[in-house]
């Protein structure tokens, strides 16, 4: 699992690539945990390069969101393809994790 992470102030922007399923969910989780440092307040997950997400992938997102929210932080997603957007709609995850069209909108939302 390839994941590019960069930093915008106290916000981490992570861009995972490819498929996110049971075979690499553990790797994805470790990569995210590695990218977030103590004191980071927010995470934007840029899903532009994600082609598929299974429930195992959603679980990592839920765990990450809970852990950030537990520390008073925030998380947002952006740039989801229509099929990925639909997974979030059907699972109801779009009601608990904000989804934005673009990275700038997501960044503005989590830092606002």
């Amino acid at each position, binding site marked *: 699992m390839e994941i590019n992470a960069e930093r915008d102030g106290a916000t981490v922007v992570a861009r995972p690539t490819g498929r996110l399923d049971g075979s690499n969910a553990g790797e994805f989780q470790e990569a995210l945990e590695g990218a977030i440092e103590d004191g980071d307040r927010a995470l934007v997950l840029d899903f532009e390069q994600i082609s598929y997400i299974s429930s195992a992938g959603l679980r990592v997102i839920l765990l990450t969101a809970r852990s950030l929210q537990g520390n008073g932080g925030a998380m947002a997603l952006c740039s989801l393809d229509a099929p990925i957007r639909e997974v979030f709609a059907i699972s109801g995850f779009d009601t*608990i994790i904000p989804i934005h069209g673009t990275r700038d909108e997501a960044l503005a939302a989590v830092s606002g």
Partner: protein
Amino acid sequence: MTHKILVVDDEPDLEPLMLQRMRRAIRQGVYEFVFARNGIEALQKLDEQDDIDMVLSDINMPEMDGLTLLEQIPSVNPDIRAVIISAYGDMQNIRTAMNRGAFDFVTKPLDFDDLRITVDRTLQHVEEWREALKSRDRLVTLQNELDVASKMQQSILPTAFPSGSNYRVFGTMEPARNVGGDFYDVIRLQDDQIGLAIADVSGKGVPAALFMMSSRTLLKGAAISFQEPGAVLAEVNNLIQEDDTAGMFVTMLYATFSPSTGVFAYASGGHDPPLVVHADGSSTLLPLTGGIAVGVVPGIEYRQESYTLAPGDTVILYTDGVTEATNIDDELLGIEGVREHFGPGHLSSDAETTGMEVMRVVREFTGDAPQHDDVTCLTLRQG
């Protein structure tokens, strides 16, 4: 191989009844029964006879009741599984029993066909569990663990489906090679109604398989305690929240079907909506009810919808292994891909054929591309 079952009940009539109703299985050497009248006697039997495979126990008994017995069983034999006999809809005791490690439950008055299915499933689980312990003693590789999880998953799927003069049910699953967490269940409810569930557990391996088992049992308990699908999902959601699930959750669609009226009522917890294929091959995708996956947010309500099935209608419940089947060009099948398949040339003739057709559509679409997720389909045909 004969399985030894300890039956614990203070009701003296149960012993002759059980021996009579199970006589064929006893004669064939499938089951052997041992009886005890209360928890104390049961513990004595377990201590004397270490080849007992499972316990089937009533709750209310003198001297030591079934719930206390449940707590004591692991100290005598930790690898034994217990099934509880409870009053219909007695969720309080069922919950306590599940918390104390009961594997499953059956309700009074006993339906012996249902009991046999439950007993067989429990015995199968006991065997898988013993196998798992053996593999743990050997070198446990990840693949080994996944094999065990996969067997546990198979062991909870129903193999017999209820049917009536005007309806049929069929379920099937094609497991992914090493990941996945789908399951389905069919539950007999009061007034000849049928409960249908299809679900996809997040995560993988043994923890996900155990989570799947408890989800299934909690669902069954909630289904017989609450009639309305929305209330059933809300109850399962709350019960799951009480446990620490390490971020695991389950997308679940639960529906009830009344054969006499044809009314199909359903609620979705983050699961794909049901598809109804009509007699002429046209189809209707039922609306989403907007619920979040079960086990994510505590204390929420789940909305439900209903749809009246006409004779010749087939409801298809499915998991994302169907809609997200991916071909070699990385294209997704989608529910539209399934809908397009049914038409004048391919009518849905009965529950089993329709289920197998969906599986075939997925297989043919996937072709040589790898199967990434379990592919599961549960169908209900009216008329």
